[in-house]
């Protein structure tokens, strides 16, 4: 199987005042294409930092991050934007929808950035909204939707460009248990269907059960890796 993400001896040190805080240390890992991975840890364990590094939002202090054979820790801001545009989808904890835009306009955003013509992107966005079960809320603004619905819009937005990798940062952090389950079902089923790599960061072990592999992060290190046996 093709390896999509490779981390070699990644270390990340933050400087807080005069003190150095080691957020990540000696992280090595490979993630395969189409794999669903979860990073689980308490707050401050460094799991979010890891996600940010993989998404190119932060640079490691040391080590290398190779995604799709690109050394993304060496890419310029401009190339990182292009990289995200071409390969990466994002799902956030607080949805991060544009408050002034409707659901379909929000879903369209990544396609607008790619320069896809309006007719095509609208069609794709509507199709995507339908896939997340929101065909009735196409024209709704985020404030007119529940948290679960907003997160569905967020998921639609992450997947609309058909990216190879989708990063989800605590996607269920603001949702109740039932909705969380629905959202996770949705997100994993889409990723599986399209053979997309999904990287989820969560503190909730129940959510982590959706993954193929679970990485337990503690104090900036990978404590252990668990391969989840699927019952079916």
């Amino acid at each position, binding site marked *: 199987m093709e390896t999509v993400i490779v981390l070699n001896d990644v270390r990340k040190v933050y400087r807080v005042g005069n003190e150095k805080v080691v957020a990540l240390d000696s992280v090595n890992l490979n993630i395969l294409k189409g794999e669903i991975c979860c990073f689980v840890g308490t707050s401050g364990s460094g799991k979010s930092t890891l996600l*940010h590094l993989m*998404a190119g*939002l*932060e640079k490691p202090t040391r080590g290398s991050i190779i995604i799709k054979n690109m050394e993304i820790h060496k890419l310029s*801001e*401009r190339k990182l*934007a*292009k990289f*995200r*545009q*071409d390969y*990466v989808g*994002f799902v*956030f*904890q*607080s949805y*991060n929808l*544009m408050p*002034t835009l409707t659901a379909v306009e929000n879903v369209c*955003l*990544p396609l*607008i*950035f*790619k*320069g896809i*013509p*309006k007719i095509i992107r609208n069609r794709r966005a509507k199709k995507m909204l339908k896939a997340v079960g929101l065909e009735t809320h196409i024209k709704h603004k985020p404030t007119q939707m529940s948290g679960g619905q907003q997160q569905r819009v967020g998921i639609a*937005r992450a997947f609309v*460009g058909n990216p190879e990798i989708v990063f989800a*940062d*605590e996607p269920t*952090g603001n949702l109740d248990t039932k909705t969380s389950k629905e959202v996770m079902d949705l997100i994993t089923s889409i990723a599986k269907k399209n053979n997309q790599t999904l990287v989820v960061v969560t503190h909730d072990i129940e959510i982590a059960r959706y993954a193929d592999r679970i990485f337990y992060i503690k104090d900036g290190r990978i404590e252990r890796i668990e391969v989840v046996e699927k019952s079916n």
Partner: protein
Amino acid sequence: MNSIDITAMAFKNLWRRKVRTVLTILGVVVGTASIVMMLSIGIGMNESFKQQVSMMGSLNLITVNPYYYPEIDDGGKVGYVEPQRNTLDDKALEKIAQIDGVEAVTPLLYYYLKFVSGKYVAYGQVVGIYADTMEAFDFKLSQGRHLTSEDTNALVFGSSMVYNFYDPSSRGRYWYYGMQEEAAIDVMNDKIVMTFDMSYGEKRPGGGGQPRDIRKRPIEVKVVGLLEQGQSEKDYSAYINIDYLKKLIKANTQTNKMPGRISYGTSNNTESYEQAWVKVTKLEDVERVQKAINQMGYGAYSLTDILRQMLDATKTIRMVLGAIGAVAFFIAAIGIMNTMIMSIYERTKEIGIMKVLGCMLKDIRKLFLLESALIGLLGSILGIGFSYGVSYLMNRADISFLDYGWYYSYGEKAQISVIPLWLTLAAIGFGSVVGILSGAYPAARAMRISALEAIRNE
């Protein structure tokens, strides 16, 4: 991102904060209007100067004379400079005519002659010119035609010359210019003779004075054209083909056995004219041609000199006016920048999300530059519209705080505020450029916003 999407997004963002956008645009409107109004008043001033000066004669006209005051660098000491005299003859004029930009050249040969028609007489200045240059030198006709080079005893009368005819036998009346409302004779049709004999046709009082010289035969002349009334010396002269006038003078000089009172045909036989006119095709060439003529050793003067002095005198006023406008515009630019920076603060998160979703940095920059450019563009367009309105009202309201006085009764009323097309276009272009420049710093800031900071969970 394609440009349609960026434009749509920029408009949407501006529309989202209507009040602030409108207020910022209003600032630009005021800025544009003040700079345009101030400049337009300056331009109106210049225009009215030009109008006034051109009423005195054509601005394209250079008057040449044989005297030339060489420029001597005497270290600022003011002293009398001996003029140099050069021969200004047909040959010299031909050389002048060769100068690039010169349209026409004519010498002016002045002679004071007497006209007689029936019992009416008139004294007047007859000017010999190259007959075929009348059109070029702006001799505007009210009746008849211009002189042609075939003409001999044909004359073109200035408008006031007509009123010079009076009846010398009607005593007790002083004659002065403009006294008569109606011409005593019909110059175009009545028989007129012209003579060098100043006593011709009049009864000499008391039989004294000079004996009549019978050899000074009167010359029959025909008035072929009448000039429009202007405000120049043309009104008070009669024009004639110079070749014919020379012939007459020569004949008269021979009969008199004495040199004429003008330098033409003086004893040393140099045919130097006292004055000549040079018409320059383009106004902007006048100074250059004038200089060239100076370098040939002749004096050259034009109304452009006067105009330039007038313009120089008001330059400071115009600069102050422009500076006032510029200050207002500068404040508007600060307003744009302030609005954009505020907008970036508010949209930090939004910009961060855009970045994470793969929006290119150059698109973010374009978006912010476009927003500020739109404020500048809309503001300057509205400002120009506003200026046109104010300008129209000012011109209509007949505000006379800038009444320059003389020659106002003639011709078109001078406008107080003039907005030429170039100013309109420049203001709109300037507004947009200032908008973009004011947006440059905020846009750079927007680009620097860290995606990570922006999306961090609260």
